[in-house]
Each structure stands twice: as structure tokens, then as C-alpha cells.
């Protein structure tokens, strides 16, 4: 008899909330696996699409940008774009799916309780498979071209930082989306905008004086770390610090919002 449910109008607090998330971790695994399975369920090629799509993307990028001969300030441009686009795809998909996760999961949460944050984490978990496949392709391409150095090990902290950032962002926006349905479109617009203000198709040097504003973009440092790992383009420390601060702030805000709304989100669905 260890399970005791105690409910009062006040939320239980961050400690008990965190413990409940941990206690339900197997639900996260199941939900993420479900997300992934459902995505490819009715396609005759099934999970093969998970590999095929990033592969097509890599080929397109290689053909288009490999031949444009842009001035890339001495950086391996193909590797740079591949790494940036792969990281960005994961972040954008996770951010958008995470934002609507609590509302979309209404049918699931209407009758059964588990920490609602798991709904947000599940699509991010499912997208990790796509990120791993994408990074595998980038690694293979760079290895084949002899452009891979020891810096590739940076991919580990880069991925950790990006996942943490996507999680923090999604926790905040998913909680807001429950009450404010405009958030979804704000997020869509933000993703569209952020793709262009983040150095993905261009290097930060191209921005000139505007590069000083990059630390304000939460994604600049995280994506930059991927580009350093695969293309040797050293990420600026201000950008990296910016991403870390953003991530920490968003995670704290996300946790606070979710532990507060955990048992009341459902009332607004």
C-alpha cells in the first residue's frame, strides 16, 4: 500500500511531481513507441520512410548546395548544411508536436491520470529515432568525403542540449496552449521565422554586425554545436551560452507550469 493519492486544490509541489514523472517513465516509453509506430502504420514501406526521408533531404541538399559554390568562409558547406538541417528538423518537429501534445491527448487524459508532461515528452522521444537516423546519414556522408574529425564527439552534448531545449520549450508552450489556442499558430510562425534567423543555410559571419544578436536566438548555440561536430565550424561561445541560459530558464518555467496544471489542464480541454 504505497500508492496514496492525495488531492487538494493546491498542486502537490515540484518534488512529488518529479517523482510521479519518474514513476510513470514506462508510460513515456510506451507512448513514444506508439507515436513512432502509428506514424508509419499505414505506409506500405513502413519504417523505411524514417530512413528514406532524411536520405532524400541529404541528396537534395548535396546537389543544390554542393554546386552553388557559395562563399562559406572556409567551412565545408555541405557538411555544415546537412548537420544544421538535421538538427533543425528534429527541433522544429518536436517543438510543434510537443506544443499541441496535451490538447491532442485529451481522449487519453480525460479518464486516466498520469503526469501530463509525459504527453509532451513522448513525441520528442519518438523524434529521437529520426534524429539518430539523420545523424547516422550525416556521419556516413562526412566519413565518405573524408571530412570527419575527432570533433564529431561533440554530437553527444549537442544532442543533449537540443533535446533539453526542445523539452523546455514544449513544456512551456504545451501548458499555455491548453488555455490559449492561439499559441499553436504563434509557434508555427516562430518556427518559420527561426529557420531563417538561425545560421543553418548560411554561416554566422554572413550576418555581419547582426551576429551579435545571435545569443538571443535559443537555437543558435545548439545548432552551432552540431555544425562544429560535423563541419568544424567553431560555435561562438556567446551563442552557446545563450542556448544554455534559454534551456535552463525554459525548463524551470515548463516544470513550474506543468506541476501547477497537472490536474487542472483537463478541465480546459
Amino acid at each position, binding site marked *: 500500500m504505497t*500508492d*496514496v493519492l492525495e*488531492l*487538494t486544490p493546491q498542486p502537490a509541489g515540484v518534488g512529488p511531481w518529479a517523482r510521479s514523472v519518474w514513476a510513470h517513465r514506462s508510460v513515456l*516509453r510506451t507512448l513514444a513507441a506508439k507515436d513512432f509506430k*502509428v506514424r508509419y502504420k499505414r505506409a506500405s514501406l513502413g519504417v523505411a520512410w524514417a530512413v528514406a526521408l532524411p536520405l532524400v533531404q541529404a541528396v537534395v541538399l548535396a546537389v543544390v548546395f554542393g554546386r552553388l559554390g557559395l562563399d562559406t568562409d572556409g567551412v565545408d558547406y555541405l557538411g555544415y548544411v546537412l548537420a544544421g538541417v538535421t538538427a533543425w528538423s528534429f527541433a522544429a518537429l518536436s517543438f510543434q508536436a510537443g506544443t499541441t501534445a496535451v490538447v491532442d491527448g485529451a481522449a487519453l487524459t*480525460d479518464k486516466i491520470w498520469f503526469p501530463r508532461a509525459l504527453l509532451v515528452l513522448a513525441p520528442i522521444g519518438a523524434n529521437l529515432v529520426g534524429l539518430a537516423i539523420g545523424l547516422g546519414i550525416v556521419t556516413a556522408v562526412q566519413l565518405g568525403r573524408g571530412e570527419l574529425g575527432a570533433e564529431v564527439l561533440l554530437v553527444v552534448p549537442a544532442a543533449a542540449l537540443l533535446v533539453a531545449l526542445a523539452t523546455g520549450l514544449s513544456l512551456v508552450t504545451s501548458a499555455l496552449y491548453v488555455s*490559449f489556442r*492561439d*499559441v499553436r499558430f504563434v509557434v508555427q510562425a516562430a518556427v518559420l521565422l527561426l529557420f531563417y534567423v538561425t545560421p543553418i543555410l548560411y554561416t554566422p559571419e554572413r550576418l555581419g554586425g547582426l551576429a551579435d544578436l545571435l545569443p538571443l536566438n535559443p537555437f543558435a548555440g545548439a545548432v552551432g554545436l552540431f555544425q562544429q561536430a560535423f563541419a568544424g565550424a567553431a560555435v561562438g561561445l556567446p551563442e552557446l551560452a545563450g542556448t544554455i541560459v534559454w534551456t535552463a530558464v525554459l525548463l524551470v518555467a515548463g516544470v513550474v507550469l506543468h506541476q501547477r496544471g497537472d490536474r487542472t489542464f483537463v478541465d480546459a480541454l
Partner: protein
Amino acid sequence: MSAVVATDPLDGLLDPTIPPAGEPVIEALGVAKRYTRVTSRSLLSLVSRSGRKAPTLTAVEGLDLRIGRGETVGVLGHNGAGKTTLLRLLAGVTAPSAGRVRVAGRIAPLISIGVGFHPELSGRENIVVNGSVLGLSRERLAELTPAIVAFSGLADDVLDAPVKLYSSGMLLRLAFAVAVHTDPDVMLVDELLAVGDLAFQQRCLARMAELRARGVTVVLVSHSVFTIREVCDRAIVLSAGRVVFDGPAEEAVRVHQKLLGGDAAEAGSEAAAVLSDRAVVDAGGALVGDLVPGGRYRLRATLTARRELVDPHVMFTAYAEDGAIAYQMLSAVRRRHRTLAPDERATVEVGFTAALRPGTYQLTLQVLGDEGRQVLAHDVDGAVVRVAGPAEPDVSGPVPLRLGVTLR
């Protein structure tokens, strides 16, 4: 409050994990739940604070409830009386607006069927998702899957098909099979036995009895007074979010039906008239309990007027097993404009044809005055009759339509 926890004195000695007698498994103290009526909120409302308070809707108010280990408690009430909100509070889905809820033990909420089922996934895959959401570990699920499959009675090829192809009965079987295998301490059941064929319903009831014998606490919301009578020893009646009765199931059913029937007949002594000696008789006048489909019968009762009754009308209602109204009619009494003097007795007779599908039905009478607007007397208990006939596993509902389906 009468809270009979264990009828067998040895019951508590067998399992060392049992909490001391008298300690409630479910406890609600001064619980209220108010929903804010969501008027489309926009981001702009954050900026422009227009000090208006959003209108609220009170679903539950001032609710106190203590349920001991192993009790099976029914919850009755009109639609909107707060039954589902109560279950949602006990399931921990939503926090109370006031008061405190405490539930000790693992909770299996069967509030609705197939929570977390995804239409594209197969039955087997959905067992994993549903079981996991209900709190089973992967290892435990792997162990339990054969038992779950066996209980559901679904064939292997069915289990491998996506559940979007399932009938509602098949979904229910699967959902119930998972839920009863989650090893719960507390089971919350909402209207679930209304679906599915008779044989499966019996299996569900048997399984619930088994769980109950093991000390599982069950809270059962149902419109079916039959289910409440059969399964529960205690029941509460909710009305407008408050507990208006808490006690023996039999009495609760009566209170519930009084509420359904209107308020005039509520206070027995003040009633304008009394219905008594109700019976169902066949064409020959013999008392019957089992009806032959299509047979002609009469529902008869004695009406005693307490005051003058001017032009009384009679309302006949047949309730199906799930509490739904199978047939209801406000009579045209043959000899109209009859008036009964105080203390005068009369016999009310309603002839009817048992054009019903096999099952249990409850037949009730009401006497109304003022052109049918005022309830003068209400035979709340009604006559419970069985319509005999072979079981039809794929059919439900009270009306025998005798379908013929062709595909050209």
C-alpha cells in the same frame, strides 16, 4: 454511517497487507468541483485584463464520502448530477476546487472503454498501451497478456487486426480484460456493463465479485438500477452535485427513482394518493413474473386516494436493464373525468403486449393529476419481469426489429 467492510470474520486475517479495519480506502472531505466555463480565451485576454470573473459551473459541492476496503458502492443520479465528476476526482484526473480527496491503493479507472486505444494499432499493441497507462510494467504486462487475451475471448486473428475494425462490443471486451487484470485496489466503473452481450456481462459481474472477495473496493456508476441492486451493498444518490442519500443499495434505488419521478410523490405521508398491491397478471388473471414475447398482460395496482383526485391520468413506464426507457405512455383512461373521493379505492389496470426482446424489465405506474402535470402517486419499485427467449449475443436494446440484412 453503516460501512460493512468484511462479512467474513476470517477475511482480514488472510492477507497481512490489509490496512486496519475502519480505515477508509476512499475519503472525500468537503469536496467541491467547479468548472470555469471556457469562453474562447485568446492571448489578448492576457494583455487586456477586463476584471470580469468567468462564469463557473458547479459539478460537485460539499461532498463527504468514506468508503472502506472491499466495499462495492453504487452511484446513482440524474444526468449532470455529478457522477462522472466524482469518478474523475477519485481517479485523480482533476483536482478538487475545495476540500480533500484521498485514495489509498492502486486505482484502475474503467471510466470509459478503451482509454488510450489507437484505432490503427492492433488489439495486442493496444493491450500494451492501455495496460501501461493503467500502471502495469512491461514485464508484468508480458506475464499477464495470455490471461488478458483469454478473458477477452477474442480470437488470435482479431487481436492482430487494428481496433478500428472492432465492434463496440469487441472493444469493450478488450478494455475490460485489461482493466480487471491491472491488479487494482480500487476500481472505478462508469456505465460499462451497459454494452456487450449477456454472457460477457455475466463474466464481468463474476470477475467483479471475485475482485471484491479479494478486498478490491469498487465504485460503480450506473443508470441500471438492476446492476446497482445486484452488485452493490451500498449506494449513494447524487442530485445537483450533492449526496442526498448514502446507505443500503435497495433504499438508494428507491430514493433515486423518486427523484426521477418528480417531487410530488416524494414525501410519502403527504402524497395525494398511494399505489399498492402491484402485480403483473396474464390474460387469465394469474400472477406472472416471466413473460412470453408477444403475450398479452396487465399491470395492476390498487390506487387509494388520500384526497379528492380529479380526472387522474396514468403513466406507464417500462425500463430496460440499462435504465433506459423502453416504453412510456401517459394514459388515456377509458372512462374519462372520473373523480375519486378521499379514501376511495380503485384498481388501475394497464394492458400491454410484451413486444420486447429477451431481458429484464421494470414496469412502473404513476398517477398524475392536473392534466398530467402533477405526480399524485408513484409506484417507485415497479414490477420486475423477465421476458423469456433465447440469448442473442449480437443484439442489444429492447425492441425486436427482426433485421434482415442483405448485400447486393
